[in-house]
């Protein structure tokens, strides 16, 4: 995982995350991978979907240039600083204390700060990081490339990652700075005859200074003793500014004073460069780790990983269902009142006892009660229709000789029919003038009107003049139908649309 990968992912994920199913399929193709490997594989597969130039290209180039400029600037600055400190006017010797401060003191202190920064890099707002020159440089340079700026603004770097970026860059610059100092030292030593001396306002005896120098030189004193100044050299090279002039002893040992350079070079090499290299490596390791962590916490990545690694569970239908459009119109052939009597009353899927009770409740009288539907056979239902047809024909004075053709059906139907109470059987009192045959059909309002019923209704409509469909509630409801249920029957009747059928809707 590199920074470029992180940026690719940051650019890819918001637009190309894909569905759970796609990502799971991808996850199943790469079963035994670590999360990082899975993400990397995903990136490789999707990278071509990004338009060129990719943000990562822009950023990597920018990052490279900033690094290069920063490195060169640091090197030049180091060389200039070194050369300035070492410039020997011939009047006063070069004070090694200054140089040590630059080559040992400053690096050790800044490396300490760097280590503290690294330890705290996991905090988003790390003040130390923002104090770093690398951070300023970034800000200053970014002003010079407005074109890239646009791309870079799209990138919201993980704050921890930015911390590590700055830390790493700072180490790189510090390394080149130290290298500049070392080159300056060597350059000055080669091209000039420099007299080194040491002086400080503090009262430090040569012995104490020797001890300090001994500590500094500890890492190489064993194998490079010539680069460790002796007590003599230190005594000889102590310089008192107050004297205002070089004493004779110093001039006498002038050749020896040059010996200091080996020590200074070693100090620069070991501390400013050697130690810095270690810190730089640590920063690079830290950066790499932080890239990895930033990738795994990048917005979209946890989701992607989860989708790759959890099974896709689907429960719903795979094809959409066409929306059900309800015909909200109701049936317009309606009555609000029932007649006091009907020629026949049919209770669809009801038993006769119930039909009688209902008729009592509704105060309706009839001469014939029949109970089609329910668990009757279709033949029995047909018989009921035939019976009613028969009755009607007789009453409308159809020649008696035609009756015979219904008799067979009639005997079948008789099983399903009983005489109603109130009126005597139609056979006994044929009414010639009341020619219209009026049938009341009770239905269970809570049951849906089914095609089975519609078929019967159509057959019946062929036999009578008028059918009043009366949806009835349950006994508990006092046989009063809920209007919601009546609406259902009303809609059904509208669909069936039979001239002779009316709906009772009180």
């Amino acid at each position, binding site marked *: 995982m590199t920074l470029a990968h992180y940026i690719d992912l940051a650019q890819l994920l918001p637009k190309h995350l894909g569905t759970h199913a796609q990502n*799971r399929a991808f996850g*199943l193709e790469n079963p035994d991978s670590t999360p990082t490997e899975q993400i990397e594989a995903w990136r490789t597969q999707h990278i071509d979907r990004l338009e060129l130039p990719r943000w990562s290209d822009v950023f990597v180039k920018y990052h490279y240039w900033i690094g290069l400029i920063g490195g060169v600037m640091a090197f030049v600055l180091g060389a200039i600083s070194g050369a300035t400190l070492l410039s020997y006017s011939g009047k006063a010797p070069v004070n090694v204390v200054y140089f040590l401060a630059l080559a040992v003191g400053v690096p050790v202190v800044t490396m300490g700060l760097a280590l503290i920064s690294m330890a705290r890099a*996991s*905090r*988003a*707002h790390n003040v130390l990081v923002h104090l770093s020159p690398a951070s300023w440089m970034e800000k200053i340079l970014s002003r010079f490339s407005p074109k890239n700026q646009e791309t870079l603004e799209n990138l919201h770097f993980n*704050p921890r990652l930015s911390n590590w970026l700055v830390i790493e860059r700072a180490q790189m610059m510090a390394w080149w700075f130290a290298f500049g100092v070392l080159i300056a030292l060597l350059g000055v030593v080669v091209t000039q005859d420099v007299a080194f001396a040491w002086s400080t306002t503090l009262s430090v005896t040569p012995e104490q200074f020797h001890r300090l120098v001994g500590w500094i030189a500890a890492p190489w004193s064993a194998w490079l003793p010539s680069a460790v100044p002796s007590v003599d050299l230190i005594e000889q090279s102590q310089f008192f500014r107050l004297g205002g002039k070089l004493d004779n002893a110093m001039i006498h040992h002038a050749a020896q004073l040059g010996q200091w350079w080996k020590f200074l070079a070693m100090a620069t090499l070991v501390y400013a460069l050697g130690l810095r290299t270690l810190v730089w490596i640590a920063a690079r390791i830290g950066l790499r780790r932080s890239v990895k962590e930033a990738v795994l*916490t990048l917005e979209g990545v946890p989701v992607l990983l989860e989708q790759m690694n*959890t*099974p*896709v*569970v*689907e*429960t*719903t*239908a*795979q*094809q*959409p*269902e*066409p*929306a*059900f459009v*309800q015909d909200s119109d109701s049936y317009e052939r309606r009555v609000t009142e029932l007649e006091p009597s009907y020629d026949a009353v049919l209770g669809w*899927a009801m038993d006769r006892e119930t039909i009688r009770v209902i008729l009592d409740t509704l105060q309706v009288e009839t001469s014939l009660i029949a109970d089609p*539907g*329910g*668990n009757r*056979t*279709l033949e029995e239902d047909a018989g009921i229709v035939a019976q009613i047809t028969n009755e009607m024909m007789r009453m409308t004075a159809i020649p008696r000789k035609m009756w015979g053709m219904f008799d067979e059906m009639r005997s079948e139907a008789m099983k399903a029919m009983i005489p109603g109470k109130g009126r005597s059987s139609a056979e006994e009192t044929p009414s010639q003038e009341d020619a219209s045959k009026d049938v009341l059909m009770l239905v*269970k309002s*809570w*049951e*849906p*009107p*089914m*095609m*089975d019923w519609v*078929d019967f209704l159509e057959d019946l409509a062929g036999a009578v003049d008028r059918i009043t469909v009366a949806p009835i509630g*349950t006994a*508990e409801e006092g046989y009063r139908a809920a209007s*919601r249920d009546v609406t*259902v029957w009303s*809609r*059904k009747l509208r669909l069936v649309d039979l001239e002779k059928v009316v709906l009772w809707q009180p």
Partner: protein
Amino acid sequence: MAALIASPHPRFAVVGHPNKGKSSIVASLAFDDTVQISDTPGTTTRTRSFPLTVDGAVLYELFDTPGFQRARQVLAWLKAQDVGADKRPEAVRAFLRVHRDDPKFADEVELLTPIMAGAGILYVVDGSKPYGEEYEAEMEILRWTGQPSMALINRIGTEDYSAQWEAALGQYFKLIRTYDPMARDFDGHIALLEGIAQLRQEWMPSVKRSIALFEAYRQRLLGATAQSIARLVQRTIAHVERLQFAGEAPTNMDKEKLASRYQEHLRRLEQREQRDVEAIWHHKHLDKEQATLLFDGIDLFSRESASIFGLTRKEMFVTGMAGGAAAGAGIDLLFGGTTFLLGSAIGAVVGGVGAYWGFEELSEIRILGTTLGKRSLEMGPMTNRNFPYILLGRALYHAHTVASRSHAVRGTVQLVMDETFKERWLGDELRTELETYHKTFRSGEEPDAETFKEYEGLIYRSLEMLL
């Protein structure tokens, strides 16, 4: 016949009279809120398949079917074939062959086809209405199919005729269960699956696996919900809104604009979170229009929400102390004078013009230094301590409503939260725990993954408790 070949996975056909809740039962079992359900009989006209798949592999398959329309005529046809008991399924198959394209028996063909292809039968009746003999023909037909079957009593209304039904159904079905598709009852769902598993020995392992899967699946959905809520709270608290203004000092209008943008952003965050949660629970078709309308009453920034859903003064004080926050903040809250009354303070924000102290109750408005001659105003992160609890309460209420809504329910969600809801999830201990995280969020720093997971865990537990 293809139908006799052992099917690769268990199938179940939900059949019955029209309008008795077949589609509702399927919608609830399949978490599918797109199923057409209405009180008009004949809503379902085609058989539809609802497979339960894991990575594409089918564990079982449910079928929603149209209701019987001409059961007696079908039965008459079957009886006319005059075959012995062993040949009855053959007769049903013959019926399907003969009437495949007969519009008269379209519904019967639709519903019998999956059964003859090997599906077990889930026969649905409405236990809140009396039993009637007209059901016998269809039960007889189902018996003719020779497929394993089970009756499901669904009570659509309030009355109870279960005893009647059980007596009648007992003549035709060995297994009779009661199931309520309108309740999102996890245990009921599992119990039904366990019943289904008994229909046929070979189906047992597959259905048992499905049960385990549903249990894990539910946890996953809960986890995703908790994550979404946690993110909402964190983002809301940490959000910072900036506004550039011209001139030396910001005008009142600038401040208003900033405050309203700030609120707008928080509202959007909440809306997005709610959509996420709805998607997690497969309620993508929740009536949004209505929902927003109804939301107005308990809007984030309205007066009521503060007192009902947030903390009371005393609770705030205790939380402030216990949460390890500066005691000063608690005291501040207690003696803050007029600006203290959070309810009115937040109300004032809505009330609008001139009431800046109200904005500041949510977060200070700061003036930032000049960059390139432009100054900017900044608002956020949320300093109001009560706010996270209001937000959490609302989010939990919404999530709990969505998660406990059956996919068979249609129509507008009623999101009406009352005072007792807070008592159901927010105890003293939890409040103390939550406060430490809210404090972290307030610092504006991105919380690390672990802290965030812990916070998510608290929300997960609250959700689990609520459900």
